[in-house]
């Protein structure tokens, strides 16, 4: 019993239980709508794993939301709620696209310049929130929601400027190919590349039919780096102290406002990096007029939340999310269930994570029941 209680108290357990509940609720909804849930889940998983290239796509879809997840999680460590990851992403995507389109340097220069531009753009967009918070105490949720909309409309405005707009399309021109970060983007379409890939069918599928890119490596690296910064450096120590108890941090002489600003800049930079990786690593390599938010940032919120703010957890939560987003389409095309089912499932999981206190309550009760028997 004590052991059960202990296991139940682990954050990962509540995340897993939430996932299970998410599936259960989805099963109920599916049954109510007249679909066979097993078939639907089968379709979901085959959509994620049936072919190597599917899994490759899951990873590709997961990459930006792992990074925005890290972004949200980082800010959360200093008790900041970065609901503005979406806007930071949009603003950075815009900057990266424009630069990538107008600059045409050799890849060794083009790629770092674009990545840094994205990081800087996201950092600036997050930094604005940080400054307003540190200087004037304006709540970050308010400012970042506003900045999300500003980014959205700014981006839409820029997309439709003559200089960038691709005629007869809804988007801009794509960035120059020197800014691509896919794995061997030109070689794989060359004759020698094709000839080589022909011998390994699965690799050919993965290479030619998906935008395999370096983004996931960057995301994993960032998760590790973030863990290191938070738990092994004095900066991270400051930020966590500020996050856990701002009053005490202030009292012992930590510059709280600077810490908040730094945290927002870093958080924004991670969202910017997510945008850079998407634009540079995946078709269509441009930005389009956005009807609504694409949720790259908002999904990051869910990812960070499911991961319980843990950097490494974000990788897995991001993959789970990417899997749902990509594999979920298979539910639609294979058994005809609407994609909303997947949205309901994700919503339910997040909902149950939010209710995870209930699980620790159950754990308490178990522990207590045990104690009273003793």
């Amino acid at each position: 019993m004590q052991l059960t209680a202990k296991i139940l108290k682990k954050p990962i357990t509540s995340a897993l239980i939430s996932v299970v509940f998410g599936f259960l609720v989805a099963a109920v909804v599916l049954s109510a709508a007249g679909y066979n849930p097993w078939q639907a889940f089968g379709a979901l998983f085959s959509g994620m794993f049936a072919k190597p290239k599917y899994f490759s796509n899951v990873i590709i879809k997961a990459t930006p939301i792992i990074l925005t997840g890290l972004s949200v999680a980082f800010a959360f460590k200093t008790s900041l709620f970065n609901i503005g990851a979406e806007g930071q992403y949009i603003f950075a995507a815009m900057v990266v696209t424009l630069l990538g389109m107008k600059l045409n340097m050799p890849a060794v220069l083009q790629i770092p310049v674009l990545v840094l531009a994205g990081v800087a753009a996201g950092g600036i967009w997050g930094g604005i929130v940080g400054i307003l918070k540190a200087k004037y105490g304006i709540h970050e949720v308010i400012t970042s929601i506003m900045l999300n909309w500003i980014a959205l409309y700014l981006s839409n405005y820029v997309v439709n400027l003559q200089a960038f707009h691709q005629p007869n399309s809804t988007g801009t021109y794509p960035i120059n190919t020197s800014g691509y970060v896919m794995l061997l983007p030109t070689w794989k379409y060359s004759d020698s590349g094709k000839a080589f890939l022909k011998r390994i069918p699965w690799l050919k599928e993965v290479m030619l039919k998906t935008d395999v890119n370096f983004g996931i490596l960057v995301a994993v690296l960032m998760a590790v780096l973030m863990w290191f910064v938070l738990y092994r450096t004095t900066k991270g120590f400051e930020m966590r102290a500020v996050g856990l108890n701002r009053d005490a941090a202030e009292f012992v002489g930590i510059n709280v406002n600077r810490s908040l600003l730094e945290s927002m800049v870093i958080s924004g930079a991670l969202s910017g990096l997510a945008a850079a990786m998407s634009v540079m690593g995946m078709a269509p390599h441009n930005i389009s007029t956005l009807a609504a938010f694409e949720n790259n940032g908002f999904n990051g919120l869910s990812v960070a939340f499911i991961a319980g703010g843990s950097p490494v957890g974000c990788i897995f939560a991001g993959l789970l999310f990417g899997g749902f987003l990509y594999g979920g389409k298979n539910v639609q095309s294979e058994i005809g269930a609407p994609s909303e089912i997947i949205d309901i499932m994700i919503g339910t999981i997040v909902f149950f994570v939010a209710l995870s206190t209930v699980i620790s309550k159950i754990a308490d009760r178990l522990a207590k029941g045990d104690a009273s028997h003793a």
Partner: protein
Amino acid sequence: MEISDAYAVQMRGITKTFGSFRALDHVDLDVKKGTIHALLGENGAGKSTLMNILYGFYKADGGDIYLNGRKVRIKDPNTAIKHGIGMVHQHFMLVENFTVMQNVILGSEVTNHLGVIDNKKAREKVMGIVEQYGFSVDPDAKIEDISVGMQQRVEILKALYRGVDILILDEPTAVLTPQEIEDLIGIMHNLVKNGKTIILITHKLKEIRQSSDVCTIIRRGKLIDTVNPQKVDEETLAEKMVGHSVKLIVDKTPAQPGETVFEIDNLSVKDRRGLEAVKGLSLKVHKGEILGIAGVDGNGQEELVEAVMCLAKAENGTIKINGNEIQNTTPANAVKNKISTIPEDRQRRGLVMNFSCEQNMILEKYNQPPFSKKGILRNGEVRKYTSELIADYDIRPSGCEAMPARGLSGGNQQKLIISREISNDPDLLIAVQPTRGLDVGAIEYVHKMLVRERDKGKAILLISLELDEVMSLSDTIAVIYGGKIAGTFKQGQADEKTIGLLMAGGGQNAVNS
């Protein structure tokens, strides 16, 4: 004891657990009608929990409650009030910008047949109670304008207005000046004379002996004893309360003050509402001296500390340590200038509760060698350092280096802060309410540490709301009132009454009620 209607309250076998912590274990309590019954125990002993069960705030896991010999079920405070039980909490629940009258009738207004508040009738009723029990309160004064002692009377009035027969007072004297305490005891006696029953929750031995007819002692959730406080001495009570013998008097040699280390001159600080809370305050602390500031809460103590720590703006005046002015710089600068502070609210200001003990231990030194190098923390050094301090200061449980600070008891949390601040080797150590919420054993320890540091030649500024503490610990006593030092005495120069008067804003001879 038999269940009988000679008792206002009888509790039988009350049990309550929070999580895995057993707060109350089969506690019985018998309160005779028309008596003042004290509940004595250390912080966390369970006395407040027991009363919160009686008042319907908590639900007991087991046990029964009898009122006047009849078994009752009290499911919430409303039921408690209906049964004639009232409670005055440590923190008052008054509407600041309402008048006394409005606060008293709030929630049980007398209305006429149209549903409109009948002020005249309500006023008659309130004034009747005021006269009957000899309260001197102005019914039309606003709460924010009256003293804490008055506010407490309003709380009592509120309960009486609701027709309460049993009144629970939770640590009522914590915020009062000695004179106000005397007045309160007078009121309590008056109430009992008029047939009311009072249950007094406290950990102050002296007051129990002054006020109570019966005293029940609770320790770690268990009933220890019920005694007649007039017949036992304070040492015995204290021993029953903590479970071992304690020394109530601080052991120290006369001070050997050296040169001035710390000097505040004509300091003015505004509080959060923008009102001047510290008004031209000046003081000096010497090496090897404990300067104690006595005063009632809210007379500028908090703002004074915040200004010294550079958390609040000094509107005027200077703060000098070792001759360097530090006012209006940064908290980091204050720390750098060798000021260390044991903050009043250890959970809010002193510790990051979710950090481990070792992380808390380096909260001020994380970016100094050997704890970090080029921005990277060196966990081995941190652990080594923490382990030494844990051993030196006997912080328990031993081996708590990686345990979150919230897992420690209040006393050990305080030890953690004290060890951290003292190991900064400060020139000035500020201790604000260093023993708040600690049990007698821990208090003794904290006092010993402060004296030890004084003897090492440190300057110590003690700010406490407990007059006994200031009087017994300080070499020099300064009384703060209205943001100014109202008087300074060497230890032994002034008695409790003189100081108490100054604390209440009176001159040496004048009485200000």
